């Protein structure tokens, strides 16, 4: 399979006044074109930092990343054009309407007016927000915000979608809708990379899963293989087996 993201020896060290924290420690991985890739790990395992480096939000301390053959350090702008990021926070302008939020993102990605209008109408309908298009997002529920946040990230038709904890805090109905949406995007040929704390989500949705612990990559395989290798019945058992039972801060 053709890798669309290649991370080599990725390390990120955060230095504050009092301490030095190695959030990601020599991580190498490949993500293949068209797959749904999950990143799981306890709090502070380094998955969000790895995610942020791969999506060009932060620069690695050492190591390299290539996204669709572009170098993340030198060609970050080109990478940003072909990726869409759904942040954990909904990150919507509460004093703009749903449509205006989408238009803002479309404009920043240079989507032409005609195409943008078609996509906005299509996506708003897809996530059942067409009747709320001209309402300020400040009054939206968490589920509505998440749905809008997702379509804001795909308005420019990206090849890769980075999705940070897509269903945290959502009700089962919205969670099902988000999973359906993820599968739909994947069927259209988009590569999906997401972080999650829900093992069931990773198990059901992902083609492959990376498990991180203490800044290191401790396992990377399909959910089935991971379960087989550690003779576990669920991904949660695999997770506990690899990362321990200790509660993390």
């Amino acid at each position, binding site marked *: 399979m053709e890798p669309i993201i290649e991370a080599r020896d990725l390390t990120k060290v955060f230095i504050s006044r009092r301490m030095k924290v190695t959030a990601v420690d020599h991580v190498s991985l490949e993500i293949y074109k068209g797959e749904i890739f999950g990143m799981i790990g306890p709090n502070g395992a380094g998955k969000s930092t790895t995610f942020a480096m791969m*999506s*060009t*939000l*932060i*620069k690695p301390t050492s190591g390299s990343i290539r996204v669709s053959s572009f170098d993340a350090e030198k060609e970050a*702008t*080109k990478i*940003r*054009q072909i*990726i869409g*990021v759904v*942040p*954990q*926070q*909904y*990150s*919507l*302008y*509460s*004093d*703009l309407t749903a449509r*205006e939020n989408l238009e*803002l*993102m479309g*404009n*920043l*990605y*240079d989507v032409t007016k005609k195409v943008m209008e078609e996509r906005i109408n299509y996506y708003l309908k897809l996530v059942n927000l067409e009747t709320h298009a001209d309402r*300020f997002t400040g009054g939206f529920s968490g589920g509505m915000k998440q749905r809008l946040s997702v379509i*804001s990230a795909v308005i420019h038709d990206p090849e890769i979608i980075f999705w940070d904890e897509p269903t945290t805090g959502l009700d089962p109905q919205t969670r099902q809708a988000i999973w359906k949406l993820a599968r739909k995007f994947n069927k259209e040929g988009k590569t999906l990379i997401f972080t999650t704390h829900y093992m069931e989500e990773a198990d059901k949705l992902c083609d492959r899963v990376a498990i991180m612990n203490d800044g290191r990559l401790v396992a990377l395989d399909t959910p089935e293989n991971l379960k087989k290798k550690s003779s576990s019945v669920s991904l949660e058992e695999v997770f506990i087996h690899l990362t321990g039972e200790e509660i993390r801060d």
Partner: protein
Amino acid sequence: MDIKSELRKSWIIMMKEFKQIFRKKMLIIPLFMFPIIMIVFFGYGMGGSIKNVDILIVNDDTGMASSSLVQEIGSYIPKDSDIKMFSITYTKDMAQSEAERKIDAGLYKAVLIIPQDYSERVAKNESVTLTLLTDSSDTTSSGIIVNFMQQLLAKTRSISLNVPEIYGNLKYLDFLTPAVIALTIFFGTVQSTGYAIAGEREDGTIVRILMTPVSKWAVILGKTIHQLILQLIRAVILILGATVILGVTMNGSWLLVALVLTIFTFGSVGLGIAISAISEDMTSFQQLSLFFTLPSMFATGVFYPLSSVPDWMRWIAYTMPLTYANDAMRIIMVKGQGLSFIARDIFILIIFGVLYFAIGVHLFRREA
């Protein structure tokens, strides 16, 4: 970097900022009402005293009466102070027009002209007129000087005082308004730029914007142009309001006002970005921005002339850009002077502007 595309994206950011600000209706009221309220309250409520004020005495008389008058002026110490009220420079044979130019240039707050036959006329108890020119753009100092001279000369009935109004009939409001406009622009720009960035960081929207192909420069440029337009509109409304409603004097050029405020706003945007960049959240931004802006309000001669504050406070004022913006605004609006008279202020404001902006941009990290 594709400049056209960057400028287009700055335009998008700028329009977004306008949409947001005009939807916060509760913000519009203080945005324009705050300075009007300040002008009204301070304009009618302030008094003041002065010390060590530079004045020039043109004494064309060589008699005893003028010597004793000059001595009395020079040695006067106000009741509530231990410092002399005036720092006097003496000269003679100076035409009134030249004395006015000295005031225009800001060298003296007042010039007292004593005629050649002063002592002789006083001795004969004949009427004699002294001319007192004052820098009436500083209405506080000017009013106190005129009052002092009138009281001093009232002892001798034959002496009268001629006080020509070199900038027209000015009130304290004329002194106050240009500086309140500069202060409003300063506070407004630092606060709204900083709040926008700190707020966007807190709700995560800035991360989303920075994850698009838009550059850090385009984001900053969009926000800066938005502030420039907003603050200039504010200044125009304030000046028109102050002149029409309160009868404040506007003797100078609107273009020069725009020039000063544009440079000043540019630096203030930089300061707002810098403060928001080092603030962890909205609360710390509030505290930090007050720390940086509040001293300017009181130290830079907005409400009282710098000549009336202690030396240490004056030196602090010289390190603050608002001091130079106040000075330039008064020179334009009250004195009606041209570019050459505000060149020094503009030069210093440019230095502050470039410095603050460079620091702001440097601190505005992509790793929001």
